[in-house]
């Protein structure tokens, strides 16, 4: 017993270091779980308030650009509304509810913290559980996809930016519907990579990449970017396609959080099918 005590006293510096380092590494390895835990949510609440006041100041600097984006979007929306159509006959327009059922609705939020310089970037939004934000909701801008919600507190949401090692978004090339996966290789915040497109497909620079809508998270057809370049590595069967993001991640301000109203139904179906297959 005395020997053990003597040992602990003698090596207390090393032992304490190992103990604390294990605690730190455990937090790091479990970071996805930790982001939902109480301590980080308390942290979120404090930092959220803090970033809100910082962002209130910097928000003014972006007003011009934000207004521009909003008016462009307004114009597009106005084009689609009934008042901009001339009635071609005497019939009245009806919105047919059996043909179109609403699948997505949108919550407006403001970016209060955002990074683009790290390998794994996160965004903080000023809307949380109180406004109906939940984990795994999509976050988009008028220009395209921004990220996925990974954790929510009462008033704030943490969003995993597309500029993250864990990003995997199912996407397709608009002109020929070829399916692939969007990832980010960590170098340039304006360039992403599209993988898994078979090498026999014909491509050209400037082709548009949009979301496929297969993930239950992102609606289909959202803009992701345009192809810069494409190549096939020796002995591979798939393209590596660097493309420019349509979103400028460095100047994110207002975003929409997308809620998929049919997500539960989709996942339920998937689960029961898989359960049947396993029997």
């Amino acid at each position: 017993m005395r020997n053990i005590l003597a040992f602990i006293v003698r090596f207390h510096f090393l032992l304490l270091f190992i103990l604390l380092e294990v605690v730190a590494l455990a937090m790091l390895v479990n970071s996805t779980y930790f982001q939902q835990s109480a301590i980080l949510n308390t942290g979120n609440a404090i930092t959220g308030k803090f970033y809100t006041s910082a962002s209130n100041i910097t928000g003014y600097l972006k007003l011009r650009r934000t207004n521009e984006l909003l008016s462009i979007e307004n114009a597009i929306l106005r084009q689609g509304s009934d008042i901009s159509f001339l009635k071609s006959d005497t019939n009245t327009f009806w919105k047919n509810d059996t043909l179109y059922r609403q699948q997505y609705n949108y919550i407006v939020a403001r970016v209060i913290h955002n990074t683009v310089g790290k390998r794994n970037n996160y965004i903080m939004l000023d809307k949380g559980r109180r406004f109906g934000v939940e984990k795994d909701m999509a976050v988009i801008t008028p220009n395209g996809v921004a990220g996925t919600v990974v954790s929510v507190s009462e008033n704030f949401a943490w969003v995993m930016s597309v500029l993250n090692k864990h990003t995997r978004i199912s996407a397709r090339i608009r002109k020929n519907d070829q399916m692939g996966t969007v990832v980010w290789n960590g170098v340039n915040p304006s360039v992403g990579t599209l993988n898994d497109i078979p090498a026999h497909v014909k491509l050209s620079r400037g082709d548009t990449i949009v979301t496929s809508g297969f993930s239950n998270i992102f609606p289909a057809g959202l803009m992701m970017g345009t192809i810069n370049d494409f190549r096939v590595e020796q002995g591979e069967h798939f393209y590596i396609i660097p493309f420019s993001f349509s979103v400028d991640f460095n100047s994110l301000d207002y975003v929409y959080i997308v809620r998929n109203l049919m997500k539960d139904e989709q996942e339920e179906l998937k689960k029961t099918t898989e359960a049947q297959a396993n029997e």
Partner: protein
Amino acid sequence: MNRLVFQNIFRFILLVLLQVVLLNRINFYGYLNPFVYILFILLLPFETPGWLLLLISFVTGFTIDIFSGTPGLHTAATLLAGFARPTVIKLVGERDEYNASMYPSLHNMGLKWFMTYTFILVFLHHAVLNFLDVFSFAEFFRTLLRIIISTIFTVLFIILIEYIFVSRKEKR
């Protein structure tokens, strides 16, 4: 003694604020990411007991982690810097004439000593931080470049901050 504690608490708050408000927002094509808050660990007094040094490192790293939403990342890196600090001080060479309240600043130790000391610890800290962040050796050289550039900028920043404080002390 009390003055020393207050001085360090004041420095802690100042450096954390500088890091979170200003430096966390700086980036340059994904390669430049200075973490100047490590200066707080560098400037702790020589006589800080080992266990206290480790606990302070842990708390410092954890504070930065909470503000950047990266649990454990800065904690692990700062902890290693705190652990390595006594060894690095021995390695760079201690001065005989320091007293208990003295701390390893540019003013106390001279430019050459301070720069070597800072460079080793900052490099260690940034290396652990970046490799843990990427969590693979697949992008080894890209990560290394990121580490080297960030280290250079952090060291420059620290020397600059130290010069501002030194010149103020001499005027008094």
